């Protein structure tokens, strides 16, 4: 067994679509370390989301092995995966997925309730710059604000890994940069492992490592010796 926060050996995921077998992910091997920022790049249909879902414990691989801190996840049952998501994983989605009838603060509290070692929701809200919007409902917030709430919600559980699926996909440039800055800070200040999935190659400039996916194959992993600060990233 190898050391490292998360270790994947020959991960595969096949879907049966009628008579066709779709190979969404083919024998991907990689590891994630504590406190690093990884960007997964690839065109649509390359298997990015499949990879994220498997890492996030929302889906199980068809083949291969996956270990989180030495524990196997590829054989885990639904209950174990729930516990894994609950205590170790934070998600940020392209479309925020906030609860429409909870306020910003309450949305964060919702995830604090189930965590074992949570962070303060009010502090986090201040951190993402929305202290004065605590009592607003999602419908009263802009897209960027909603995404920042979603980020605070993901962080509130104090997870080891933060998984972000196209976090800036629905945002304009300026707002996107703000969100990316927050993700970078998360990585640095809290020592979290952040995985960002995107098809926006520019974002890769801020990563420690870049995974290139194509047709379900993890083609290469690139080390970035000089990650750019988010504010310098342009597209």
């Amino acid at each position, binding site marked *: 067994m190898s050391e490292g926060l998360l270790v994947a050996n020959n991960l595969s995921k096949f879907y049966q679509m009628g008579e066709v077998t779709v190979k969404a992910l083919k024998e991907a091997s990689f590891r994630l370390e504590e406190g690093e920022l990884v960007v997964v790049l690839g065109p649509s249909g390359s298997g990015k*989301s*499949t990879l994220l*879902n498997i890492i*996030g414990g*929302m*889906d199980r691989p068809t083949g291969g092995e996956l270990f989180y801190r030495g524990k196997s996840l590829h054989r885990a049952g*639904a*209950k174990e995966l*729930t*516990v*894994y*998501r*609950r*205590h170790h*994983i934070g*998600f940020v*989605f392209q*479309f925020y*997925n*906030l*609860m*429409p*009838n*909870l*306020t910003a603060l*309450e949305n964060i*509290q*919702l*995830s604090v*309730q*189930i*965590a074992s070692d949570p962070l303060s929701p009010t502090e986090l809200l201040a951190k993402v710059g929305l202290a004065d919007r605590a009592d607003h*409902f*999602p*419908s*009263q917030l802009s897209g960027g604000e909603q995404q920042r709430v979603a980020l605070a*919600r993901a962080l509130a*559980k104090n997870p080891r890994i933060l998984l972000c*699926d196209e976090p800036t996909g629905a945002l304009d440039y300026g707002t996107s940069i703000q969100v990316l800055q927050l993700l970078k800070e998360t990585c640095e200040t809290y020592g979290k492992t952040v995985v960002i999935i995107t098809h926006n190659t520019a974002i890769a400039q801020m990563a420690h490592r870049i995974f290139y996916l194509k047709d379900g194959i993890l083609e290469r992993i690139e080390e970035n010796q000089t990650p750019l600060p988010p504010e310098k990233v342009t597209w």
Partner: protein
Amino acid sequence: MLWRKMLRDILENKGAYLACLVIIAMGVMIFTSFASIVQSLHVSQQAYYENQNFADGFVQVTAIPPGTIARLRDIDGIEDIQGRLVKDVTLWQPENPENIYLRLISVDPNEPNPINGVLLSQGRPLQKSAREMWLDNQFFSTHNLSLNDQVEIIAAGKRQRLTVVGVGSSPEFVYALRSMADIYPDPETFGIGFVPWDTLRTFFPDTDSFNELVFTLKPGAGFEQVKEELERQLAPYGLISIISRADQVSHQLLQMDIDAVESMSTAMPVMFLGIAAVILYITLKRLIEQQRGQIGILKAEGYTDPEILRHYLSYALFIGLVGGVAGSLMGSLLAYPLTAIYQEFFNLPAFTAAFSPFHFVGGIVLSVGFALLAGYQGAKKVLSLQPVEAMRPHAPIAGKRIFLEHFSLLWRLLNTQGRMAVRNLTRNQGRSLFIFFGIMICFAISSFTWSMNDIFQKMLYDQYEKVEVYDLKITFAQPLKQDPVLRELRANPGVQQVEPLAEVPVTLKHQWHEEDVVIIGILSDSRLYNILDSDYNRMEPPENGILLSERLAGLLEATVGTTLSLESPLKPDDRENTVVVAGIIPQYVGMNAYMEISSLQRILREPGLATAAMVNMDQEAIPFFKEKYLTAANIAAIEENGLRLNKMKELMDTYGSMIYLYALIGVIVGFAIIYSSSVITIAERERELASMMVLGMTPEEVLSVVTFEQWCIGVPALILGIPVAKGMMGSFGQLLNSDLLTMPTTLSSQALFLALMVTVASIWIAQRTAARKIRGFSLAEVLKSRE
């Protein structure tokens, strides 16, 4: 192609559509079956009454010579009036422990147009003065008799033989009760015999006159005026009563039942179809929200608005049609067993079950109509959608603060899931209201039907187990002096206790109110007849005072202390007497007044007069006792309490099955509402609920948001269900209350508990389905898509 899309969409959300379908089918089933029964009852009743010349009025007198009748025919408004002798006799059947009674009615074989003419189904006409009779068909078949059988009766203490030469029925005895104290017709112990007048008169040597008159009215004539004139002219003949057709027992009960079935055949289907319409409306509305994109594409492709509307209406049409056809089919089939039940109670010759094409088609039309209306309401939004707008996702759901949040103390008690649930209640108020209504209906109907069951048992059993606790009741042929009779009865082997009973017909008056009732006179310390208050405490009939049943007190507008005037045909003079109301008691079977027997005798100025005796005795001595007195001229009837109770229990079994049918219907409706709205809620919030699971919540935690919400609605709905059930009992009681029955409107705690169990179980089952759906969420897919 769109047709196929519709079928697939329906399959995808089969839970909600199935619930809708079931409710529609049940509504239509009730409509088709009951409406066709009502029609058949109506038609056969009308035809029967008309063909057999059913009387408009019934007169009882002590005795009137046949020669005087012709004079009455001249009274303005009377079309025809005929006299007859009516006598109750017992059948001579020493081997049978149960007494069998026949009501013998004199018939004039020469009368060309008899009032209440017998409809002969077998046999031949009666011959003047011959010792022969016709029997009513139910009695005839129940006792496995055949034509030319000999029937032996005891009339005026003498055994007499009559040959059965015909079988028939009379409009007067569609619902043949021996007395007002009976609740249902029982051909095993009671039948009607029609005997030539010249024969019947010889059985009763002291009566050479008629004791009843029946008359028909000219079209447009008023009963009341005729009654007044008759009262005047009949006074010398010991007039006992004049009643109109409307008050005739058989007619009254038949009419009551027709009315009840009729109101059920309209109210229930409307309720059911209404509920189904709401489910259909919600489901379609949601479907259209969901398929905005598809609608946009269809519009962009060039489909016209009516075409798209037609497409969505086809869902409603499909559900309405399938539900309607299924319901009509089931209803047409159900009409047969239901008719059979009614046939057991009602002796209506032409009343049979028949397939009614009108109601079959009517049921389908009704169902399709309701469905299309609901469908149009749910689908009309597609008309206003512009293609571009339609393809754009709709605005996000706006969260709102709710009223409860102003009570911060209370609000803070809730955790975040709790707050979410409570806010959801107001997010879709219509839906919440519908669930509320469903839970309430489920609870109210089941507690109502179970209470009804309890109450019927209570009403009937109490009478024979707690009130009338004697073993035998011996009714005298005419009032007797009590002392020698009681002495004689007491001397029999096995007799433990004998008490006198006076049942005296009286007219009680208070202000302008007037009621004809029977006063029951018993000993003040009676052990065999208990008068009970509502808490089952024994009450002693007061000396000189009168106890009234609640219903009688209501009709007379009398309270404790009210002075009533009292008249009785048994009273020798015409002087009016007064009596003070000493108490009001509940009475469920019959409507009586009670007095201490000697006070009653004093009022009648008949010391020692009794009309019956109650006896408690060893069980094994009963057959011998009955045999001994069966032929006694002074005794009209011997009734055994245990046998009556058994009969009642048999009847309750039939009735019980009807009640369980209603309970089942209530539960299905309630369940369908709870289930369908729960399924819709889950489908609607799929994304939201899935997000919570991604956060790491267990399916149980996610479900708890939904269930908490349901309980928030459910608990108040259950509480409000209690008064609703009470209201249902009240209005049902109104419908049923008569001089025969008074229904208490209390909900039994047992019924409430059972109803609670059923409702909670329905909610629980619906929640299990929700849990299964939640566990089946594909997180990855739900979240990837945009809302």
